[in-house]
């Protein structure tokens, strides 16, 4: 039947930004209530800077989810990349660039494998990327038998750790934030591009896309590659921010997926916006900071976190058309 839809719903077509914005606003209010100077330029800058990796991952995850798939391997990929970088660079300043190139290549390779196995071999992405997760973690531990070796050079770490200093107004802008803004802009352009729109179609109805001449396997594989590239970028930033560790990427895939869902991206594909996903990630980071400032007892944090996520997603999903 023909139903002329009130404009209110139009916001939801573009990914349902309304709910996430509300949640984020509430958290920020609570935060400033406790820590008035949180929104002051210096602290805000460093907050955004350190949140950059997670936001990047969420953006990457968006492309995969909207194409109707799921990428559980990003966390392990981040860890792998950091460990690889550390071992290859091993404190040698000059090694930075070549290694960065190599990481990118490795990331793309992982994305390709994820994508091609999922599309050509018809393995559900949940399994593909779960398998990739096991493979990467296993391989990295094996390769560095149980403890990361070598170390990152200060030069390599600068991107994640340093900033443009003493600027007017803002004071300092972390390089990470600049990287993030650039990546976000690129992601936004991409989602509006033919590829971006086609990808949504692929997630919404693969059959129709196929019969309209879309190379579905290609589009989805591209999505996985984008996710892996995002992970690689995140790895460089995380490695830079806090150095080598097997924990570098632990649990990040879950963070990224939750962020996307919070941001109104529907698991199953065809709906959502990259902005939403990134806002979702920012919301999660805000939540963690909030718990720091309110001194929520460490052991109870998972409980608080779980509860808030459930509430938020429930709130969001009530307004959204069912998945």
């Amino acid at each position, binding site marked *: 039947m023909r139903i002329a839809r009130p404009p209110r719903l139009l916001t939801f077509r573009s990914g349902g930004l309304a709910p996430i914005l509300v949640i984020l606003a509430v958290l920020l209010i609570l935060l400033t209530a406790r820590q008035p100077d949180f929104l002051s330029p210096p602290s805000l800058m460093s907050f955004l800077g350190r949140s950059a990796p997670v936001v990047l991952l969420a953006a990457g995850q968006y492309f995969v989810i909207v194409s109707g798939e799921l990428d559980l391997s990003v*966390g392990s990929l981040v860890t792998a990349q950091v460990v690889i970088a550390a071992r290859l660079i091993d404190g040698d300043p000059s090694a930075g660039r070549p290694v960065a190139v190599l990481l990118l290549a490795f990331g793309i390779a992982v994305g390709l494998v994820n994508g091609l196995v999922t599309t050509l071999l018809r393995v559900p992405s949940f399994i593909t990327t*779960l398998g990739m997760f096991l493979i990467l973690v296993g391989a990295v531990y094996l390769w560095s038998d*149980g*403890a990361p*070796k070598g170390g990152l050079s200060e030069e390599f770490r600068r991107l994640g750790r340093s900033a443009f200093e003493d600027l007017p107004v803002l004071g300092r802008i972390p390089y990470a934030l600049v990287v993030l803004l650039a990546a976000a802009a690129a992601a936004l352009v991409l989602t509006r591009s033919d590829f971006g729109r086609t990808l949504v179609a692929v997630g919404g109805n693969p059959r129709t896309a196929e019969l309209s001449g879309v190379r579905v396997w290609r589009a989805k594989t591209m999505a996985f590659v984008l996710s892996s590239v995002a992970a690689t970028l995140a790895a460089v930033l995380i490695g830079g921010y*806090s150095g080598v560790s097997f*924990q570098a990427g*632990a649990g990040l895939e879950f963070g990224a997926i939750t962020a996307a869902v919070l941001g109104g991206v529907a698991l199953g594909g065809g709906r959502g916006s990259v902005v939403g996903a990134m806002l979702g990630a920012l919301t999660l980071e805000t939540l963690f900071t909030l718990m720091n400032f309110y001194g929520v*007892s460490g052991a*109870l944090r998972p409980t608080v976190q779980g509860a808030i996520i459930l509430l938020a997603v429930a709130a969001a999903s009530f307004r959204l058309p069912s998945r």
Partner: protein
Amino acid sequence: MTVLAVSALLVLSGCATDEPTTGASGSPSAGTGSGTGEQSKFFVRADYDKQLALLDATPTGPAGKPWEQALNPEMVETAKFKKPGPYKICFSNAGLNNPWRQVGFKTMRAEVDTHRGRISEFVHVDAEGKDQKQIADINDLLGKGCHALIVSPNTTATLTPAVEAACRKGLPVIVFDRGVDTTCPVTFINPIGGYGFGHVAAEFVSQKMKAGGKVLALRILPGVDALETRWAAAKIAFDKAGVDIVGVEFTDGDPARTKKIVNDYIQRYGTIDGVWMDAGAVAGAAVEAFEDAGKPVPPINGEDQLDFLKLWKDKKLTAIAPTYPTYQWRTPIIAALKILDGEQVPNPWKLPQPTITRDNLDEYVDPTMPPLHYAMCGCTDLPGYPRRWK
């Protein structure tokens, strides 16, 4: 996948383990987490006192070989286990996936190599940090005709039945690191323990900082007996010193998480006067957080991992590094051979638990070793050093 992460963390936290807190079997009175003022519900006064006493005890045994020394030893007869060699020694390992256990196990293998002639076969089974698997493993090993069984239990209570079963088989059982709730093993080897660790660190931090200053306690994971004891002891020391514990946070052993937490605390309290850690894993990250915030690094403790020691030396930090020495992995092999020779061995075999201070720091810093290597490995005299540990 979160679960994978969490379980990885348990071992990754670089937390060494020590003797069981009987608090474990105490009921989980729905207490609010540690650090909210009242003492940790996992605290056991008796163990605490015993360990603090041991800190001052003088070890007996060959000088310069702490892994053969013992603190107020009580010897036990082992004649009934006397057998002619060469021996098949079996080892049921709780897990291998954290640097501490990695270094320890390498050390143990090296120790085995030094007894090539006498040990014909060394069987190692890795339980991957799963109680259930370790129970199966032990059961499995009993069918392999071992002359001696070494067990490093994953948890205390749950492994007890399996160990008892092994004892009943009549072969000498040696338990080290974490203990079991039974006296049937010939000996139980481990250093002083978590209370000692936590106490030493807390004493140092509270003494070096201004009285009544603000302390941030950074912990790896909640709910791990080893780490709970460290915190419990630290709490007592801090309360005695009357310092203000502004926060007790869990870092999941994730440096990024650590930096974020420290960062937020600096912003919230302006200055932090002391940092206490229940394990060295993220000490480096904590130090960095202060640097990035342009603040002086307050008195802090780490562990004997080389990345921290280097940082300490380079940045001339006010720091201390209590240890939970990896050389304890040598002792079980030595003990096994003694026992199979019918020699007496101490039980419990309490190893000394040295602390690295500014004075002896240089002995332990070795820039050529990997960042996560544990300096207190007592492995420098073993075959294949340093290659094997790199």
